[in-house]
């Protein structure tokens, strides 16, 4: 539709995008200007760079390699609970990292379930700290993502090709070479690039399972430069390095990926005639489900025992987290909705770029930049919570835009002309048409943002003083003080809060949504 008139105004969205761009680019500029290049990179920095790259490569390779048989099994088998399992694959996205780590420790740790069992046979316990622990946690988070991406590609293979191959009498191996291998060649570079980019900015995993000179990511090194040495120049220099890495990785991920990170419509199993070994598929599905579910079960089991041993600090931290998540979600919607509307008018597609900027800058890089900017005017620790809410909102923005933009486009395309011909004002169109029509997407984006913010352990670690903590930070502190019972209880509380926030905003609203 080419026309002058639009039912929505693009200007609030243009303003919001400018604000986000100014925030991100401003903090990056602050980092670049403050970077202490004279000090140069020391040996420890090169080790951190190497570790960052090695763990990201290993995490990407293991996640993708293990996802292939799981996705293949899910693509060609139909069984009760298949939909639930595929839905479960989306859960790690909103699972607080610290909760997953406690669960993984409970299963794979020194005093965990597997070590206990190995002890029965006189074997030494597993050692989870270090490179393999970091990779294990990253695989836990990214195997589901890889599986969903590959499964989607698998299900997009037209059923006719399988029918033709079956008609030609292709057996399993021939079918794989003929149809599935070309698909994998097409999708795998994108999957690897996305997971590599995600793992580059890993902070909470490296903080809890890494550490030490041999297992420090750049993101963690930034944190250490801050908290141990309070060397802002070095933190800024490391941030600049991290930024260069993430920009390259984000560009690669954008280039290789087809741009549909998480989507619905994965419940259609293509009919296959090549059979294959059901036992093998069963093994992969069972192993993947156990790998995902056991740590969650461990959190629930050990958390129930710890629920009554939580100090009052935990409840204060929980309240803080709820407030931060609420504020962060409000800020996100105030930014994302106008931006989505502006993009929907069809003339400001470039705005989506400013949303993607959040992917290129890591939380600790933005945090470092904000710290540098705020310090001359105010005490950064006093602003710890607002800064956390803001950074969380900016980090959730790319995901929110992906959810909101198609819906906003659809509403404007479908109802825009009618509203214009009725002489409806932009304000009325917003309140009476756009908001009600986009309610499911708005609720989904809000739920996602609230859960992400609730579980975030990143920028808060930079800004907080001992008097202030969000729940994830409090759990980390309890772990550091070896109060594992209390930490487990708090982790269960955090799990309930994150999932509860998501459910309340997304599903709870859908129960009585209008059609």
């Amino acid at each position, binding site marked *: 539709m080419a*026309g002058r*008139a639009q039912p929505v105004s693009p200007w609030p969205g243009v303003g919001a995008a400018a604000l986000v761009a100014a925030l991100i680019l401003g903090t990056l500029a602050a980092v670049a200007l403050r970077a202490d290049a004279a000090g140069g990179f020391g040996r420890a920095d090169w080790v951190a760079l190497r570790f960052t790259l090695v763990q990201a490569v290993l995490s990407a390779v293991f996640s993708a390699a293990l996802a292939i048989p799981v996705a293949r099994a899910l693509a060609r088998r139909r069984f009760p609970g298949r939909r639930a399992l595929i839905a479960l694959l989306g859960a790690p996205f909103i699972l607080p990292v610290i909760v997953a780590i406690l669960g993984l420790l409970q299963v794979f740790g020194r005093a965990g379930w597997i070590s206990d069992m190995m002890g029965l046979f006189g074997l030494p316990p597993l050692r989870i700290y270090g490179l393999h622990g970091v990779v294990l946690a990253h695989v836990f988070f990214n195997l589901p993502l890889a599986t969903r991406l590959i499964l989607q590609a698998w299900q997009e293979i037209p059923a006719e090709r399988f029918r033709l191959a079956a008609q030609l009498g292709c057996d399993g191996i021939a079918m794989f070479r003929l149809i599935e291998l070309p698909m994998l060649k097409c999708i795998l570079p994108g999957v690897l690039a996305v997971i590599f980019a995600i793992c580059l900015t890993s902070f909470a995993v490296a903080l809890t399972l890494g550490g030490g000179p041999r297992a420090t990511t750049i993101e963690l090194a930034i944190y250490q430069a801050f908290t141990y040495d309070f060397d802002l120049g070095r933190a800024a220099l490391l941030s600049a390095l991290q930024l260069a890495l993430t920009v390259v990785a984000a560009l690669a991920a954008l280039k290789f990926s087809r741009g549909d990170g998480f989507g619905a419509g994965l419940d259609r199993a293509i009919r296959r005639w090549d059979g294959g070994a059901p036992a093998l598929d069963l093994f992969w599905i069972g192993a993947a489900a156990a790998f995902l579910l056991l740590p969650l079960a461990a959190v629930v089991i050990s958390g129930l025992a710890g629920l009554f041993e939580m100090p009052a600090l935990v409840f204060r931290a929980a309240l803080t987290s709820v407030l931060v998540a609420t504020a962060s979600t409000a800020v996100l919607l105030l930014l994302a909705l106008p931006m989505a509307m502006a993009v929907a008018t069809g003339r400001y597609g470039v705005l989506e770029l400013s949303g993607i900027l959040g992917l290129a800058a890591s939380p600790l890089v933005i945090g470092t930049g904000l710290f540098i900017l705020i310090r001359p005017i105010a005490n950064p620790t006093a602003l710890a919570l607002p800064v956390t809410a803001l950074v969380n909102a900016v980090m959730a923005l790319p995901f929110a835009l992906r959810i909101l933009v198609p819906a906003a486009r659809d509403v404007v395309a479908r109802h825009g002309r009618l509203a214009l011909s009725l002489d409806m004002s932009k304000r009325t169109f917003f309140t009476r048409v756009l908001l*009600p029509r986009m309610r499911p997407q708005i609720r989904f984006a809000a739920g996602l943002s609230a859960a992400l913010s609730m579980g975030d352990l990143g920028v808060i670690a930079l800004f907080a003083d001992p008097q202030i903590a969000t729940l994830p930070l409090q759990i980390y502190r309890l772990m550091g003080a070896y109060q594992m019972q209390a930490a487990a209880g708090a982790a269960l509380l955090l799990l309930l809060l994150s999932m509860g926030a998501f459910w309340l905003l997304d599903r709870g609203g859908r129960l009585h949504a209008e*059609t």
Partner: protein
Amino acid sequence: MLKLDGCLIENGNFSLRADFTVETGSSVAIIGPSGAGKSTLLEAIAGFRDLTQGQILWNGKRISDLTPGKRPLAMLFQDGNLFPHLTVEQNIALGLHPNGRLSTQEQAEVQTALDRVALPGLGDRKPAELSGGQQSRVALARVLVQRRQILLLDEPFAALGPALKAEMLDLVAGLLAETGTTLLMVSHDPQDARRIADQTVLVADERAHPPAPTSNLFENPPPSLRNYLG
């Protein structure tokens, strides 16, 4: 009187010229091969498309600079004529007050319109609970309360069966006669034109031809119309 004064509509490689007048109160069918620009012509009159050249006048006043909502016309599209999340009454009320609440008198007006299109008592329903024909009636009831001087129809009844479509056209003809509204109606069916429109505009060869009496046109079709009719 609606006057298209030396209008040129362009969109990429597509172009359409229109230079004619339509008398107040007349009913005009717009007919022509698919892709020739029938809907484009209507969209330009309604204000959804810019003119490259020329102007559109209504009773001597230039309307081609106005936004769609400020033009003295109501339009029904091929689809999407009702907001699916609003009730029938709310949808009709938007024709009176797109941005506010209705007075008691205006609420009564909505009920009268519902009665006029033979849908009494269905005001609380959502569009999805109605049949296709009933949905068209609701859209017509809204057009009725809008009280605009020109009505543009871009094949809003195309999805209905032949009998239902004829019924709707008769309803439209009745409403036009009551209110003296000028009608411009896109159609690809000569039967529609014969049923309701005394004049017909042929859109073909990048040109919207001036209105000609419908019966004459179909009895002695020019070559481009003859090709279209087959």
